[in-house]
């Protein structure tokens, strides 16, 4: 039993600071999420020290729910959380098993329990990430097998808290309805984290980060065009934050490749092959749809 602990040394020994710094670097925006993760990791750090001092308290409940619109980084954060929990020694292995309804719920009587249990077994010692968790519950069908999966999940979440952390994710409103009809879930989850939408500036930063990872970059005009693109795309239906940006970038890369191939006689330099020009962005359908409306207005 130790009497005094140097907090700074402890922090450095665990290496949690590196992860948090990386989180700040790699994830743009998401301030409430980062704050919450920082709080959780502080608690876990203190809990670790308390254990060493013999001030044992029960293992804290770490099950979480992530709510937010599509493409706000719920899965990405879940992967990071697993790393943090593993470094702090609250999960033993740190793997993330990501599942949806299909992998938990069976198709006939007696199929669900073994299926759910198999997933749980694979996730033991790590994090079980259930995406779009509200599909587990189908209120319109009383005999839906989802309920069986929910019961097994709840039981394991309660009895094997030290073996497994469950993260439920989904879109805000539907998750609220899901929790309302399954009160057991709500009370077993300690951390409800809401993922806000990104602002235009953050989306641009995300785009540039993604491009940097793929070894591309915007020219000055292309960036200006992309700022306009973001503004227009946001007003159109089915906008899903960072995911839409990723898809847009993929299409822009297609057009850039097409442009380069069209001009076979020119010598390609490393500079040219990395650079994305304004026409690549402006050819997007988004502008075609938006402009006539703007012209009419």
């Amino acid at each position: 039993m130790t009497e005094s602990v140097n907090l700074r040394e402890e922090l450095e020994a665990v290496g949690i600071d590196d992860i948090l710094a990386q989180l700040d670097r790699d994830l743009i925006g998401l301030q409430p999420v980062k704050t919450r993760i920082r709080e959780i990791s502080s608690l876990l750090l203190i809990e670790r020290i308390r254990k060493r001092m013999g001030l044992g308290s029960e293992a804290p409940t770490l099950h979480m729910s992530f709510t937010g619109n599509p493409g706000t980084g719920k899965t990405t954060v879940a992967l990071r959380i697993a790393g943090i929990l593993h470094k702090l020694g609250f999960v033993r292995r740190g793997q993330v098993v990501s599942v949806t309804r299909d992998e938990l719920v069976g198709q006939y009587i007696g199929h669900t329990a073994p299926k759910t249990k198999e997933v749980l077994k694979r996730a033991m010692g790590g994090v079980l990430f259930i995406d779009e968790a509200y599909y587990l519950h189908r209120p319109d069908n009383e005999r839906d097998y989802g309920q069986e999966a929910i019961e097994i999940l709840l039981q394991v979440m309660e009895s094997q808290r030290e073996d497994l952390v469950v993260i439920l994710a989904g879109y805000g409103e539907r998750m609220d309805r899901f929790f309302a009809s399954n009160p057991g879930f709500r009370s077993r989850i300690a951390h409800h984290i809401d993922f806000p939408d990104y602002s235009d500036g953050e989306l641009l930063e995300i785009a540039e980060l993604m491009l940097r990872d793929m070894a591309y970059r915007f020219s000055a005009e292309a960036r200006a065009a992309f700022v306009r693109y973001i503004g227009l795309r946001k007003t159109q239906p089915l906008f899903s934050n960072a995911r839409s940006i990723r898809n847009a970038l993929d299409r822009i890369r297609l057009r850039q490749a097409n442009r380069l191939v069209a001009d076979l006689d020119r010598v390609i330099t490393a500079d040219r092959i990395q650079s994305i020009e304004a026409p690549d962005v402006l050819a997007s359908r988004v502008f075609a749809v938006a402009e006539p409306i703007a012209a009419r207005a």
Partner: protein
Amino acid sequence: MRVTQGCFSFLPDLTDEQISRQVQYCLGKGWAVNIEFTDDPHPRNNFWEMWGLPMFDLHDAAGVMMELAACRKTYGDRYIRMSAFDSGHGWESLRLSFIVNRPKDEPGFRLERHEVDGRNIRYTTTSYAVDRPEGRRYGS
């Protein structure tokens, strides 16, 4: 008479903690750990029944221990063993197996001598337990 087969069977029975560590070793090697049970202790009985499906892709022993607890609840009066299957090329077979549960009372084996072909003798071992029908061999 205590049945000794597989690893560790000459040691005192493993505790759950020890079982869990052994399972973790197997998982660390990338082997799939399975649970099997039987109430026919004959050493030539190769065909133990499987509890559930083979457990591939596990990372932590807690999952196996959960199944072991469930198996003990149903078949606590029988022999239960863990077997670790290596799917690696060139192996594709069991690498390790050990008993994790045994009946409270193990009645042992009878040695039968058959006198054949004049003065020759053939020997057969039979477990006293199998005199009773399957499922009723160990008390319950």
